[in-house]
């Protein structure tokens, strides 16, 4: 079974050097643009997410590929991968979290400032994966609330990027009052976070 080498030969030509995102709904006019605050803040937030890679195992290596030159996470406004929870918006948990590690994940989550989002990358972080054992936490949603799950063992870099884009959608559409709401408080309380 021979088939031709499958490199990407149909490279899409660049329309311009800089691609500009769509502007939100609003009223344009001479020298001004009126729209709701929600949308502006959402747009600003979603295109400048600072991720905190919490990489423990295999998925972390795939994240390295995502972050590296080939897949380039920086295209999505995440050039700065921060390793300090205080400065980051997005906790990316990648890899198996053992029970010994569970409290550490929670601690890191607590150290992050609101608004904060969490993405669980890989089967282990989502559900424990193939490791249904005495020592592995069966999914990080047992200790912290999760916004987006990326399945796969490990997920391909494209899948991680897809999860990241979904986080961007969430961030962009989030209402400014969500974090003050009753529902959100209840959610955090269910994890024992005040």
């Amino acid at each position, binding site marked *: 079974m021979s088939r031709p080498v499958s490199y990407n030969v149909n490279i899409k030509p660049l329309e311009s050097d800089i691609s500009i995102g769509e502007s939100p709904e609003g009223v344009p006019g001479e020298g001004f643009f009126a729209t709701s605050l929600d949308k502006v803040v959402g747009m600003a937030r979603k295109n400048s997410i600072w991720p905190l890679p919490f990489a423990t195992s*295999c998925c972390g290596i795939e994240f390295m590929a995502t972050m590296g030159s080939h897949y380039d996470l920086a295209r999505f406004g995440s050039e700065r991968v921060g390793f300090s929870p205080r400065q980051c918006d997005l906790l990316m948990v990648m890899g198996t979290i053992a029970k010994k590690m569970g409290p550490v994940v929670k601690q890191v989550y607590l150290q992050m400032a609101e608004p904060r989002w969490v993405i669980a990358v890989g089967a282990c972080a989502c559900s424990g994966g193939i490791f249904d054992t005495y020592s592995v936490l069966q999914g990080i949603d047992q200790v912290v609330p999760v916004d987006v799950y990326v399945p796969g063992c490990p997920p391909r870099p494209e899948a991680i990027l897809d999860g990241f884009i979904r986080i961007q959608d969430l961030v962009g559409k989030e209402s400014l009052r969500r974090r003050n709401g009753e529902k959100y408080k209840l959610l955090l309380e269910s994890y024992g976070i005040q």
Partner: protein
Amino acid sequence: MTEQAHIKLQKGSIEKTTTTLNLGPTHPATHGVFQNILELDGERIVSATQTVGYIHRAFEKIAERRPLYQITPLTDRLNYCSSPLNNMGWHITCEKLLGIQTPKRVDYLRVIIMELSRISDHLICNSIVGVDTGAYTGFLYVMQYRELIYEIYEEICGSRLTTNMGRIGGFERNFNDVAFQKLEKFLKEYPAVLKEFINLFERNRIFMERTQGTGGIDADRALNYGFTGPNLRAAGIDYDVRVHTPYSSYQDFQFNIPTGTTGDNYDRWQVRNAEMWESLNIIEQAYRKVQEFKGTDADVFHANVSEYYLPEKKDVYTKMESLIWHFKIVMGEINMPVGEVYQSVEGANGELGFYLISDGGRTPYRLHFRRPCFIYYQAYDELVRGSMLSDAIVTLSSLNLIAGEMDA
């Protein structure tokens, strides 16, 4: 004053003149999940206490419940930077227990895959050493070329990182033409890149200052600590499983074992680079040997062991017998012979050993992984004692500690 009365201070903590620093489990400067409690006198490290087990996943216990084939995915997740190497090691162990002789072509194909994964592993390790000494360029530059290796894996088994590659007795399918074309592309393009990568660092003043003379260990201590692989060779001992107990026809290849002298970070980095050159050399030899097979020999990609090798998919759909065997193999309903086997391969980090005890059942009675990372990490205290705090980070990455392998 009254409030301070019931603050309990640890005994001796007032007179203490050293600072305690928690490095890890998630420290901004470290990669992977290891905790080091460092005692610092100024910036000098007085002692280090390592804690591991932050991703302990009970591999050995799982392996007692799984038939042979279902253990292959576990070995992927040991040292995930070079998964195919672990897969091959495990299959070679099974073959030793079952008494299977693999054809030469299978051996050579395995050698190609094993050396490719060694390159990808060393590449990550060396570029991360670069990152930790402040040079991000090398990392960004070579990641591109690691993708070439992953593309070859994809052609062979469909997966990138955790490959689950191969079967007992060989491979699941023959390498297609595209795989070989991609291999040729890699062999053609990679040497120039590697040379350039080495040039970025080798005589770089900052890099040399940061790595030379830090994290060193002498040969005697390294042996006593059970070092193997590049870390032992950097200390000057030319022990290599590929040469000392050849497996997968490594005796047919000509290659050198690069060694260092001082066992410091710089030597480790150099040894890994030299090994990448040797690996390229081995791959070229193996590729030539593979191409020498003509006619029906060129279609051989597995040993003839119908009891353990999955039947062809076409037959499974049409023939009763094949369907039965397929079911039995997938469900692990085949008993193993009784015996105890120790087989080791030269993993990217050192001697990766599998100690398999079978009591004649369907699953191993006991499977112990000799995980090189776990064994040499205990020397970390001795490696960094007396050096600066910043050297501790470089030492951590130049040992190439893989948390998955360490904690199993």
